């Protein structure tokens, strides 16, 4: 009986310890672009997507765009993977990755995971106004 409870407790504590370790190791710290360039380790950078710079690179098979953080620093992001849903309309993104140096020494943020901030559906009445007048929503 006592042995059984002991085994249970042991299992629970091992699992909890492991969970804590996994938890702390899966959280990537948020930093700004300047810090990311200094640190050289895996971080998350949050900022504005400069949409006119977004392009798909056939050569690198990557989505490339400029990211601007709250200090107005900019960095080129090379995102390896398919374009996330809602990326085109998202004002902001938080990308996880590492700063690397490009061929000319310019810093490049190489990212493999991106979290996209959705535009708020509820503040913007522009589209609704448009629909009232566009009638069936035909092309302008």
């Amino acid at each position, binding site marked *: 009986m006592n042995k059984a409870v002991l085994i249970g407790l042991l299992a629970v504590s091992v699992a909890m310890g492991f969970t804590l370790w996994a938890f702390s190791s899966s959280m990537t710290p948020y930093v700004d672009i300047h810090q990311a360039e200094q640190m050289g380790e895996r971080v998350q950078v949050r900022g504005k997507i400069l949409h006119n710079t977004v392009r798909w690179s056939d050569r690198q098979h990557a989505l490339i765009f400029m990211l601007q953080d709250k200090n107005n620093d900019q960095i080129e992001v090379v995102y390896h993977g*398919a374009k996330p849903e809602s990326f085109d309309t998202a004002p902001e993104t938080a990308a996880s990755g590492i700063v690397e140096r490009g061929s000319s020494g310019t810093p490049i943020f190489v990212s493999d995971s*991106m979290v996209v901030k959705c535009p708020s*559906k509820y503040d913007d009445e522009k589209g609704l106004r448009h629909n009232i007048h566009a009638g069936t929503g035909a092309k302008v």
Partner: protein
Amino acid sequence: MTPGAAGSIAVWTGVFAAVLSLLAYALSHRMEARKNLLIILGRAFYAAAALSVFTAMGTLANIVYHREYQYDYAVQHTSNELYNHWFRFAATWSGQEGSFLLWAFWTAVLGFVVMRRSRSYENTVMPFLVSVIGFLCAILIKQSPYLLFLKVHPGMPGIPQEGLGLNPSLQNYWMTIHPPTIFFGFASLAISFSYAAAALIRRDYDGWAELVFPYALLTCAVLGLGLFMGGYWAYETLGWHGFWAWDPVENASFFPWLAITALVHALHVQKARGNMKRSSILLGLLGFWLFLVGTFLTRSGALASKGPNGQLLSVHAFDDISKSGLVLMVAMLIGYGVVGLGLWLWRLREIPKTSATGDNLLSRDFAFFLAVLFMLLACGVITLGSTTPLFLSWLHRPPMAPQASFYNKVMIPLMVPVTILMGCVPWLAWRRTDPDTFRRKMLAPWLLSVLFGFFMLFQVQSAQHKLFNIMAPAVYQGTMHNWINPAVQRVAIVLLCTLGFLAALSNAMLAYRVFRKKPLGAGGWIAHVGIGVLLIGVLVSNTFERTQIITLKEGDGPRTVFGYTFQFVGMTGKPPAARPIDPEYDATNRVVLRVTPPGASIAGEEQGDAQTFLMQPRWYVPRPGLNEESMGNPDTMFWPSIMKYMGHDLYVALASQPALSMYEVKLSPRSSAQLGPYTVFYYKPIIDPLNFMAAELGLKTPQNKIVVADPGMQWYKDGQGHPITNDDGQPIILKVNETIPHLNDSQGRPGVVILNALNAGTHQAQLLFSLPGMPGTWNVPLSITYKPWVNLVWLGVLITVLGTLIAMMNRLRENRLQEAGSRKTAHKTA
């Protein structure tokens, strides 16, 4: 009466009838003399509440189906473009209010079942169940879906003629099946809660177990089915490359499932051995409460930042919650939590203290105890992980959610003891097991599993070899990040698969033995077989899937990935006959690819080659102006194309929007340029500063014919005629693709010209051409994934659901027999 008024009245009557029903049932405990009358009243008011819910649901469905745009809900959730009758109907539950209604609807339906079957429990169970309906109707009063558009948007000049539409990723047949299924499961969680609470009130810690057992199994099966459908939907439609991403919406349905599955196991122990009485009541309360936690989490997340797979990042400011029905969600969370836990603690000392662990380590009792423990551990880990953003935002810390790797890291090692338990439990007896008998029985399954392990190892090695030969190692990426050495990971995965096989095999052997004697008794064992199969499928498909991203260029010839050869065939879109330079904004855009599997001969021009097949990944661009989110940058959505084989899936999706390279010409006014066999004349620009810019062109064809065109760009306008600007203050411009008349190639595809830029000062024009004889070429970025053994995932879940349903039928049958038995004895004593 307008439908909106009817709906509003219905939710109000819903609240009142629910309260009255609750009072009548509650009073029937106090007033012994009028007990029967009060119960009848309770039933009548319950029926009224349920009827109100049905009416509320019906009116909302009516508003959405008939696109009554005077109501805001219809504007937000449907559109004229939505023509499919099923989707028009299913759009009812695409919004938050609609899904609350769906939850209320199933609660109301299930309430009638419980009422009929609850025997003496009726007046204790029903008050809890009806209170859920009351709360949900109150939420719908606070956050009404029946509000008029002009009331919600007072600044608007009129009622729109078009709605914002149903999110295209929801326009899928699963939308009509998945939400009703999963909400049936969610609603049924309240039954376990109500019975557990009723048991505490009635101090009946055994009787409730029999009554609740079939419902708990039903919840388990239906929620499992719902999770399966959600995963399949995500896999097939959303282009996630997977069926499970550990996002909060999925987790919010998964942790109640774990709690209710733990309950099922505790109830089983209670029925068989009379143990775990305290635990089973707590587990009964827990499932529903965790669902409330999950609902709050995902609902409050509807206004928040989302990750690439929709994972919740931050919860919206809490003051916004008080404005919406979510404040009542919080009340439910606290209310049911306090009532449930309070009742349990109040009665705890009275509940017979029984051994949870059994007396002997080598016994089924102890195995079940550990199983419940591990399920609760898993449940706790997932709940904590998903609620992290909630806690962080409470602490005003930057929002962070643990990545999927966190869940994998914890859940995969946890599956080791769980699979060992599942593999052993069929050969363990209740109370105590003779070690020699146990060893003898385990021998065959162990040996076979080791054989399976070697087979897997061989399979994996050959598959790896094959795949690594096909592609350069630098470009592959697995989804399970390399948190341990890949070679170690492979071996670990093979070992875990072996254990999964052991679990499936042991349970299948016992299921077969039981089935021959008593078919319905095999349910639980069959369910375990499914879990083993599912585990193997999940591990293999995730660990050994490989993705490669390529850009397929028109005219460059085929490309080979993972042994499959991909050849660009064409594009489809509207209008079908025309070459879709800028594909019309619709959901029919497809890239048509001809795929030649390994070993088959490369297909030539002839389409009839039986060995090759077509794959058509799709993309969707919403029409600008249809959706305010798409103003400016139309948001694209990619839908994969999947070729299913027995042993693997070939999963092809667009990695980015296909791009057309066209021939560029830069010209000043009154000048000309040579473009292949064509001569382009640029006569003059036409500029209307507030409306549009265009360039007047002439084009001399190789046949010396002159055709004219005036490609242009236009400004989007709002209702007052002002150009609509984007966030940076730039006007949003629509480049119109000008189809050049009288200039078709032999296949009827027209020539196209785009005015890409026009300098307002120098009037220099940048023009892009795609002309007969020199068409533009498509560049298609493709993400190609090879996924082995995915079918085991679907098969495993279906076996588990089937097994659970069989177990439910078994419990129903036993209850029926017992009832008949007790009636007989009652008759005799009378």
